């Protein structure tokens, strides 16, 4: 066969491309855990929350969350009878070490644990320019930190303020719903550490999950429903003053 230098120049890259696709083969098979069998969410029972901060500390331990950043945090609301739309909200250090004692006062107090809502139509994944953040097939919003540029678009896009830029890794970081735990049959660290059961991991595709009975028999709400984010953090006993 007579191949000129020109032909060789064209053929070599073509062969390299072909070899790359042969090498790639079939996509890696998913692990033992069947993603298609799950659709994860969270149930947060506000009347049960005592504001101890166990969930915040547990999350920081489990996920090495840097100080000053939070994947979950607890807010304390103080709503007086005439200031329904202007509540006083505090969250000292994310509520990690609890809250100052509230004296008997006018109005009502309650705690609101906050975390990523793992939205089914999440605004944060829509704005990622590189495909570093995504909704997994089992309904968890995750960040591929090896792929993230750290541009911070998603941090701005999240209407719930649940994302931050990691101060040393310089990439977006957020609640993974303890993906490394739930895929092994464990509950999340915050649920494990909650002393009152105010947080419950929910698998909406599991017909035996008590979440279904709860949702059927209790009034629940999601945060900012008007934004149509498909939030899956269901709040029971949520006050209208919560933003």
């Amino acid at each position: 066969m007579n191949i000129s230098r020109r032909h060789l120049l064209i053929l070599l890259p073509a062969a390299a491309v072909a070899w790359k696709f042969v090498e790639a083969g079939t996509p890696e098979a998913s692990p033992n855990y069947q993603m298609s069998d799950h659709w994860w969410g969270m149930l947060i029972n506000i009347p049960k929350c005592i504001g101890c901060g166990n969930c915040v500390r547990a999350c920081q331990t489990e996920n090495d969350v840097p100080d000053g950043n939070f994947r979950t945090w607890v807010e304390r609301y103080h709503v007086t009878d005439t200031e329904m739309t202007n509540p006083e909200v505090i969250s000292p250090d994310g509520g990690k070490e609890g809250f100052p004692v509230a004296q008997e006062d006018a109005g009502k107090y309650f705690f609101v644990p906050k975390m990523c809502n793992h939205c089914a139509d999440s605004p944060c994944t829509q704005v990622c320019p590189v495909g570093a953040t995504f909704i997994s097939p089992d309904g968890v919003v995750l960040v591929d930190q090896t792929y993230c540029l750290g541009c911070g678009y998603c941090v701005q896009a999240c209407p719930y303020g649940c994302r931050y830029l990691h101060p040393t890794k310089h990439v977006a970081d957020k609640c993974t719903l303890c993906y490394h735990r739930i895929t092994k049959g464990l509950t999340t660290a915050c649920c494990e550490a909650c002393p009152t059961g105010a947080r419950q991991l929910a698998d909406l595709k599991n017909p035996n999950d008590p979440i279904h009975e709860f949702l059927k028999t209790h009034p629940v709400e999601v945060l900012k429903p008007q934004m149509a984010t498909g939030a899956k953090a269901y709040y029971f006993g949520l006050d209208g003053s919560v933003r």
Partner: protein
Amino acid sequence: MAVRRQRLMSGLKDAGHLFRFAGLFVVAFLVFLVVRAYVVPKTFGQYGHYRGAAMGEIAQHPVKFAGHQTCETCHSDIADTKTKGAHAHVNCEACHGALFQRMPAPPQPKGNLYQRFVALIVPPLPPDTPILLHADDPATVVPEKPDTLVLCVRCHTASAAKPKGFPQVDPTVHMGGVPCETCHNPHSPTMGSDAGASPAPGGAK
């Protein structure tokens, strides 16, 4: 007909520079394909517009809270005490915390030439620190006993913000610096008094 063909052939004779130009485009496209095959991760697009392998990597993070089921396999006596008391639904690690210690990180493989080249441009993220759980090696990872004066108070200090039904005490009046476990068994606390002792002032209502 023949005239038309002749005209076409003479036209093509003058179009050599166009073919060279088109050839350049073809070469550039092939180069693009090769570069793309290298820089786009293999599992990108497996499930959507992201790297499918990322989920497996995230799932590899070490578990630090072993879960109460793990604790109960050895400490069944405590589990039995707990089931009868007010703390039946408080998981072990809610008070004891995650019992683990960090281990020295193993040396990282350097990777192939391409990976090392990429690492020069984008420094790789630090790997997770390996950990050893108390459940895996109870003799090496020995937990500290929690300080009840910090731990119990965190949940049970009286505050108007807490749910009304939750047992709350005023720590300054109720115990005066005496550790909670002097009177209460943390694994199965009773409200008011234990073993016939008179209730301390400022106790739970």
